[in-house]
């Protein structure tokens, strides 16, 4: 049976690698699809003399065929060398590392907040299906899913930072507690959207388990409510846990808007600036790195599914 899992893992890994290669090729190709002369775009705001253009073409190997350029970029990227930014002239790898901490902090905090609040809320909603509490939670989750992060962020910013003055308006702050304080509003913004998904998900998973025959059986045998709920929650945890891992992708999309709204210098804000400036090396590197992170978590989620649920393991072995 372990062999089956190994085969599955190898095939899954191979697919992921192919997918990442295709994606990186696609984004690399966009550089050539972008309007205007690539050399001019790469020069940025510098003076476009013929010598400067020739120099840029030589520096970025634009005189070579497309596939040669791509493999050249790829071989360097695999060793962690993503080239230099057009906008700042700094190595792309270092720029990303410097900003990773902030994005990780905001996303981590948002993830924690949404899970701590939304999983219990989803369970409560499922237990009280059809009652006013359930309706309120479901209604709120529809609003949460519909509301874009920047709109929520600006409203929170106005109410709690400008109006009430409880939180700072912009920036990152200094020192641990102050920094954390600066991250609360962006994290809450993200957590509201994420939490709405988690409520919906948890509610559906718990509700599905509650409708199973074993719940009726356990109750008819006289098991207490708490015992039955314990069994239900354990079974409902599997789909919830694996879906939580897939939320990582959603977090990356959301953190971009939150960082821009709250003027936080994270990876999302870096992507926004680089895209607007047509800073190709940074955009290329960020896209691939984020895609790698997302596919890795998806892979881990699949593995977690296999380890947690023996039924799926057996189904695969058959």
């Amino acid at each position, binding site marked *: 049976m372990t062999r089956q899992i190994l085969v599955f893992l190898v095939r899954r890994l191979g697919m992921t690698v192919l997918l990442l290669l295709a994606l990186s090729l696609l984004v690399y190709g966009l550089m050539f699809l972008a309007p205007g002369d690539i050399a001019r775009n790469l020069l940025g705001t510098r003076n476009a003399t013929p010598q400067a253009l020739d120099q840029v073409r030589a520096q970025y190997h634009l005189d070579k065929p497309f596939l040669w350029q791509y493999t050249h970029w790829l071989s360097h990227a695999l060793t962690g060398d993503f080239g230099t930014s057009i906008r700042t002239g700094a190595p792309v790898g270092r720029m990303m590392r410097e900003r990773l901490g902030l994005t990780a902090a905001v996303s981590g905090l948002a993830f924690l907040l949404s899970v701590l609040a939304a999983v219990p809320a989803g369970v409560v909603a499922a237990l009280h299906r059809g009652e006013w509490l359930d309706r309120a939670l479901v209604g709120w989750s529809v609003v949460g899913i519909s509301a874009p992060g920047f709109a929520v962020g600006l409203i929170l910013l106005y109410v709690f930072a400008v109006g009430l003055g409880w939180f700072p308006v912009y920036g990152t702050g200094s020192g641990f507690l102050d920094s954390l304080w600066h991250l609360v509003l962006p994290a809450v913004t993200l957590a509201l959207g994420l939490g709405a998904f988690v409520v919906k998900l948890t509610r559906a998973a718990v509700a599905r388990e509650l409708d199973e025959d074993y719940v009726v059986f356990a109750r008819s045998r006289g098991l207490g409510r708490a015992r039955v709920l314990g069994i239900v929650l354990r079974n409902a945890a599997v789909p919830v846990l694996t879906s939580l891992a897939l939320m990582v*992708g959603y977090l990356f*999309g959301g953190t971009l808007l939150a960082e821009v709204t709250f003027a936080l210098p994270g990876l999302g804000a870096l992507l926004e600036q680089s895209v607007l400036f047509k800073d190709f090396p940074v955009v290329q590197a960020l896209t691939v790195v984020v895609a790698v992170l997302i*596919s890795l978590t998806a892979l881990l989620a699949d593995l977690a599914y296999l380890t947690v649920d023996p039924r799926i393991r057996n189904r695969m072995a058959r």
Partner: protein
Amino acid sequence: MRTTRSRGPLAPALSALLLVAAALCAAAGTLIAPHALDQNLYTGVVGAGVDGHLLGTDQLGRDILQLSVAGARSALVGPVLVACGSMLLGAWLGMIAGYHGGVLDALVGRYTDLVLALPAVLLAVVVAGLLGGGYWVTVAVLTVLFSPSDVRLVRAAVLEQTTRPYIDSARLLGIRPGRIMIRHILPNIVPTVVANVLLNVAFALVALSSLSYLGLGAPPGAPDWGRQLADGRDLLGDNPLASIVPGVLIILTATAVNLLGDWVFERLDRTVAVR
């Protein structure tokens, strides 16, 4: 969303009312708000109620109320086009993949994997940004990025239909695959597809306004809710309504579309169950 059923048609009715109002604003924007783009750089930003501006003005002296009414057009037209376009693209690819299977199915499957490898908004920012942005470029990019959900939906529905006897008999009668797909399979999957279009409109509205907010959608100066939010971000102290009003409008409209979509989905569920 099983409970919205017991809530009765109040929520969907209110949603429909709101959307009709928004659609009216989108259709007759210049009649309702003839002075939406009138600038007054001399007075600049003023708060609510000053000089007959019920909701104040932005930094260019434009009336927030009229600007928001005029913004309904770009908030609705783009997302509807994205949802319908991705539905057409998705239905076409999904039918081919589901009906023929084999290599075509595998190719379409890899296409959806590729597009779903990154969150749509993130990929849209990268692609639309590098292609130079602009409202229509962004609409086209989002159409492609939204198609995988339609592809999967249609493909699953087609797979479910093709095993049924009526398709077998149609095939035995020698009807061409294209005709079977359009005349026989398509009518059976239309309800599912239509419900998904509504839900996609809500997601497209959020995505498109996000891109406009980042400066990759509507051009500068155009009436657009996402852009209003970006412009109003710096005016939170002088006239907070400049960003709060379009923000609330985006949230309300997207929620209304979602509620309506959920309602249609449920009705569909019920008719399927009855059948």
